[in-house]
């Protein structure tokens, strides 16, 4: 597999590399989902990934925190290479927050317990410290009054904001978003995007799969266009969304716009 020759695009060189992917490939049985992804995400950068379904974008960000094991290539997160060593994996995972399309909140726990579960058990924080952090985070995502409710009692937008707070509770250096607004009703998308924009503005390193062009233009530093398991095009958001270079990029934009 050949590495795509789009390394020419310069990423903002204002920080060290947080995620380095080199020729990452992944097979599901006989189907090759990733055919050699190479890219570098720098500290504070917001990378937006777009592409048709089945293009491998979700598989790629799931390899970054090892929810999928890559079969070839190298992934280095904050200086630690992802190998089969389970202790490395758990360390890297606790430095990466992830937000899922379907929220995946723990339905048997209240909002505050959802947020404090990992800090208290993986980081061994005492309960008061964890709950104080949870209160701050709920304030930050705009729903401080929902702390004692269960996820099922919240709207989709509120649930996704809780999921963001839960990921932030581990004080991650990187946040991954896997189509965070795709399962939401239209009127709730804005409240989640607002939280994400605030997060991007605060200097968080983010990799976001989304088709929200407004968000990509406003908060994104760089767009990666995935198709067929490859990065087909890489450009700043303004450039990509107004004037894509590749044929497949043009076709894709004509379909989602």
């Amino acid at each position, binding site marked *: 597999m050949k590495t795509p020759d789009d390394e020419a695009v310069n990423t903002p060189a204002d920080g060290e590399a947080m995620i380095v992917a080199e020729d990452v490939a992944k097979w599901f049985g006989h189907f090759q989902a990733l055919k050699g992804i190479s890219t570098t995400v720098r500290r504070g950068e917001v990378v937006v990934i777009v592409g048709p379904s089945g293009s491998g974008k979700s598989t790629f960000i799931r390899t970054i925190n090892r929810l999928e094991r890559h079969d070839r290539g190298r992934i280095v997160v904050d200086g630690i290479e992802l190998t089969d060593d389970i202790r490395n994996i758990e360390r890297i995972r606790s430095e990466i927050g992830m937000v899922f399309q379907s929220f995946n909140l723990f*339905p048997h726990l209240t909002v505050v317990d959802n947020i404090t*579960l990992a800090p208290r058990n993986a980081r061994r924080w005492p309960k008061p410290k964890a709950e104080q952090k949870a209160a701050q985070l709920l304030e930050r995502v705009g729903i401080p009054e929902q702390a004692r409710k269960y996820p099922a009692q919240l709207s989709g937008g509120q649930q996704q904001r809780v999921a963001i707070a839960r990921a932030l509770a581990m004080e991650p250096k990187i946040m991954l978003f896997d189509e965070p607004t795709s399962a939401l009703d239209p009127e709730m998308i804005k409240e989640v995007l607002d939280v994400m924009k605030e997060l991007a503005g605060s200097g968080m390193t983010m990799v976001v799969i989304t088709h929200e062009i407004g968000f990509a233009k406003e908060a994104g530093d760089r767009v990666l266009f995935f198709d067929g398991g490859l990065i087909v095009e890489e450009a700043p958001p303004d450039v990509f969304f107004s004037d894509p270079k590749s044929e497949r990029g043009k076709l894709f934009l004509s379909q989602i716009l």
Partner: protein
Amino acid sequence: MSGSGSLPGDLERTPIPATEEPVVQVAPTRPPLTPGEWVRRNLFSSWFNGVLTIVSGTLVLFFGFRLLRFVFVSADWSVLRANLRVYMVGRFPQEELWRVWAVAYFLAVLVGLSRGFLIPPHRTRRGSYLRVVLAVLALGALFYLVKSLLVWLLLAIAVALYAGGVAAGRRLGRRLVRPVLVAWLFAFPVVVLVLSLGDVGASRWGGMLLNVIVAVAVIALSFPLGILLALGRRSSLPAVSWFCVGFIELIRGVPLLTLLIFGRFVLILLVPPGLTFAQVVRAILMFTLFSSAYVAEIVRGGLQGVPEGQYEAAKALGLSTTRTMALVALPQALRSTIPPMIGHFISVFKDTSLLAALSFSDLLFTARRASQAFEFVGRQAEALLPAAFLFWVIAFSMSRWSQRVETRLGVGER
């Protein structure tokens, strides 16, 4: 759970209806139907329903009348009156009976306390009618059966302790959770110790006491064992998962009675010489093996119902596999398996009547022997029905209790 949308804020200005739903939904009250209207709508809404009502009504009345006539007129309950103590405790020596009463008092206080802080007062207005009727019936039966003033006094003390426990539980509330939980944890060993010290020994347990002790021991042991087997079956280590699958399939493929007979006659050949257990312990061991295989399969079903996203979310947060299981997967899986789990535990309790087939003097065995006594010839029904009734009362209480647990734990689910 209050204050939904009560704080001002940009995002809260447009409350979403879903957030406004209360935890427990109450159906809107409909205007009450007149009795005639109720009968017409529910019993005679079509000609087919009418026929069904008449036929089933006739059957219910016919058999109900015959049953009541038997219970209150033609039956001679002297066999039960003469054997009441044997039904309850078998051949437990009379001079040691204080041990049973002590245990009963201890449990009465504990149950009272738990109920006091678990169940708020005035919650079961609809059930109270039925409860009064049942209490009157039970009192009537006791008046008929129990003539000894001492037993009445002892029973009254138990009721008083229970009521006192409930009152104290309500007064002290949540503060009691921890001590009561600890007391429950130690309750079973303490009870067994009290009942087996002195001149008694496990071999003297009998009657309903034996069924209950065996059932509680088996449930308490097979529940954690079954969970371990279910987790082992999912383990990524082949040796562990093969062992668990093999154990479960082996035990499930053998009839329980066979296992019990094995425990009684064969097990002794397998253990080192000199190592002996009481027969009851061997029976409990075999019951536990049997039950844990079923618990394992129930738990496995529950674990399969936990969506993959839950595991992914836990992993993504950096939780280890063990913590993911203990904190995320198992709590959800166990909650969803309460109905089949309680169903299984009810069967475990009923299956303890197989002890009779091994000549343990359990409730069923005692009842059969009472029915065969010379002076009660022809009184089989009166001797056996009370045993069936006692089994039913306990099984039914377990089922009611499970419904209560389910409603309590159901908060926030779905």
